[in-house]
């Protein structure tokens, strides 16, 4: 592509293009492409949307339409090194999920959706994580943190602060 300041690296473009043979349309690669970028940059800036749209032969507005629907991809700035979702749906809520979320937010000094000043952690609420037998639970990157208590939440924060990789997020 001709743009001087490309957001997508050759590696990302190749990763996106690798999905093309799987689907009969380019548009179907929208979600895979957004994930490719998000996993590497921890967000999908508007410029990346334009470049993805170009690869998929779509208008940027069509990609943004899909992207914005999910509320999953951040666009203003990258999320923290660890992105943690605390479940707030019924099974977790019945066993203290909301209290754990407030506790974590207070302890980390952020509001739900916010990122700590050191950029190490983004805390968010999630709807049902599908791990209700471990309620209340949290998905930190790729790791499920089970049966949360205020104490285990504090321990989690401690690990994150010390820079221990939690959840194997890239």
């Amino acid at each position: 592509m001709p743009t001087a300041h490309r957001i997508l690296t050759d590696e990302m473009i190749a990763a996106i293009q690798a999905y093309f043979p799987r689907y009969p349309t380019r548009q179907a690669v929208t979600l895979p492409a957004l994930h490719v970028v998000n996993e590497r940059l921890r967000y999908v800036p508007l410029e990346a949307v334009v470049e993805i749209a170009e690869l998929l032969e779509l208008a940027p507005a069509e990609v943004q339409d899909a992207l914005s629907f999910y509320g999953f991809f951040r666009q203003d700035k990258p999320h923290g090194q660890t992105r943690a979702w605390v479940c707030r749906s019924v099974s977790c809520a019945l066993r203290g999920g909301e209290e754990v979320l407030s506790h974590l937010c207070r302890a980390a000094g952020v509001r739900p959706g916010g990122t700590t000043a050191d950029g190490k952690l983004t805390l968010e609420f999630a709807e049902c994580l599908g791990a209700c037998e471990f309620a209340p639970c949290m998905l930190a990157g790729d790791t499920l943190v089970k049966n949360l208590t205020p104490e285990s939440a504090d321990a989690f924060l401690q690990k994150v602060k010390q820079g221990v990789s939690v959840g194997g997020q890239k």
Partner: protein
Amino acid sequence: MPKFEPVLLANIGKPNSHALAVYEAAGGYRALKKVLAEMTPLALIEMIKSSNLRGRGGAGFPTGLKWSFLPKDHPGPIYMCINADESEPGTFNNRILMEDDPHQVIEGIILSCYATRAQTAYLYIRYEYPLSYQRLQAAIDECYAAGYLGKKILGTDFSLDIYLHRGAAAYICGEETGLIESLEGRRAWPRIKPPFPAVEGAFRKPTVVNNIETVCCVTQIAARGVEWFKSIGVPSDPKNPRDPGSYGPKLYCLSGHVNQPGCYEAPLGITCRQLIDEYGGGVWKGRKAKAAIPGGISMGLLTEAELDTPLDFNGPGRVGCLGLGTAAVVVIDDTTSMVDFLHNSCRFFAHESCGQCTPCREGTAWALTMMERIKAGKGRLRDLDLLLEIGDSIGIMPGTTICGLADGAAWPIKNAIRKFRGEFEQYIQKTNPKGYQVTEAVEALPILAAH
């Protein structure tokens, strides 16, 4: 623990249960080999039809019948979409199957694709299941290497590719046409029907959408036979010729206020109380249950007195619930406020409404506004009637929405207020003694920031 010998969960708990070798050692892929060698696709459809297997994803539609809706002699392609967007609050049975027995899932997919002549299967998996994703991808890789997937499977003319497609945290992608729209790269607004996916689905081609547990049942039916399947569960109602019955084993998810939450396999038709007491070790902290969700939050509520309801496809409906749903039971103990429960439910559906149909988009948000106000001590008795009016008017059943999300939003409202009205009225009178009788529109609370 009760006596039922698990079948769908038979491999769970074995070391390395997700590995091909372990699965094969337990007899895995024998059903596939047998079917490919001995059965035509049509015969497999007939087999599943005669088993009366009903979809495990929530609606309980007969699987064989769904397959038979595909156009005959279609030149193709025909697509299989596997729905692993399991997002119904309280539900996690598919996660366990994918994480710990991915090959049972894949064998079921291969069999289902053989029956429907699909040569491409997209497995739409929610993003919140990273371990499932990794395990499935590894299992798929093993299958390609072993000749279970790819071109000319096991030397036959049947070819199949399975692709994992990751979602991005949207409940509505579990609706089959929402899933298809999302798969195609658009916002997951469910499609109007007709045309149904069997006629025009993914990429405008005939498509079947099946749930993970459903295809696992296909594996087991192919391995053990129709007779075995129909020896389990609840037979069809002889007085209702259209009732396909509730046959087979079912994975029940049990969570909330029980001593041993978990996923348990039992014959369809086990009562909610049996599940709680015999499998879940009873209500926690020695308390009593006030209510239980019978099958995911959208199904509504059973009261304590209704806990003896059998959890088959007809049982919950008889006591005013929406249905069996995902068979995910969430127990609510007697110290819990139903106001809090309903607020939680309304918040979920307002967050997850796709926003396409006016009654659902505005109705779920309005219900949440009222619940927030009630919870904050500014409720009015009139709000309960308004909530019921919303509950009674939104959904695919009254015909006011395209998909069933709104029915799922409506049922907790209807059941909670109709079955626990006294508690709501008391809460409102106690927390808003001056204003509980106000009937005019009042100021809204400041809108809470949501992301």
